[in-house]
């Protein structure tokens, strides 16, 4: 199982799903209306390391974070 958390203003509870890479995760998240509108502009971290490759493998116990647009300062 992979845990997916939605940070900052997304206001969505974490979910746990069975996926083996980010491409699969993308397909599943796009089916959720509340989530899909954020995906175009959100970055992704696996276990707190930012990732840029959709082929990245996911292992059971991994934690995926969805990071919407930021504005610190």
């Amino acid at each position, binding site marked *: 199982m992979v845990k997916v958390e939605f*940070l900052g*203003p997304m206001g969505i509870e974490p979910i746990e799903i069975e996926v083996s890479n980010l491409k699969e995760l993308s397909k599943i998240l796009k089916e959720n209306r509340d989530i899909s509108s954020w*995906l*175009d502009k959100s*970055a*992704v971290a696996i276990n707190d390391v*930012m990732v840029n490759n*959709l082929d990245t493998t996911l292992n059971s116990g991994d934690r995926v974070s969805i990071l919407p647009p930021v504005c*610190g*300062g």
Partner: protein
Amino acid sequence: MELYNGSLDTKEIFGRWLDEQSHSNYGAYIPFVGTIRAEDGISALSFDIYEPVLQVWFDKWVEKAKERGAIVKMAHSIGDVEVHTSSYISAVFSPQRKVALSLINEFVEDFKANAPIWKYDVIDGERVYAQDRSTPMSGAGLLG
């Protein structure tokens, strides 16, 4: 890296960083102090921070600065910060003026673009995500 609930004690932080480095022989110290502006009827801004990714981001900057013989520091607020008080201080120490001036610019700009911090306007006690002033982080859209 220092995170605080509410407004920063700007003078304490400025002075403590100065004292800590007072004998490190850095010729230039440049803090950047960010203060909440009164505009659009807000009483405060409010911040969420995802600390683990912020720490990774900051640690990379510590390394980048070190390669140039410099030091970076950072303090930020979590939660509500009233107008006319400070939510953010970054600073650079360097032996060289030009390195310090260049580094504070790069450090603050990358902070604005890639630090995992979310900002909300506080209007009539309500917290509204500052979507129009927010920037997608580097690599955003991967799952879109």
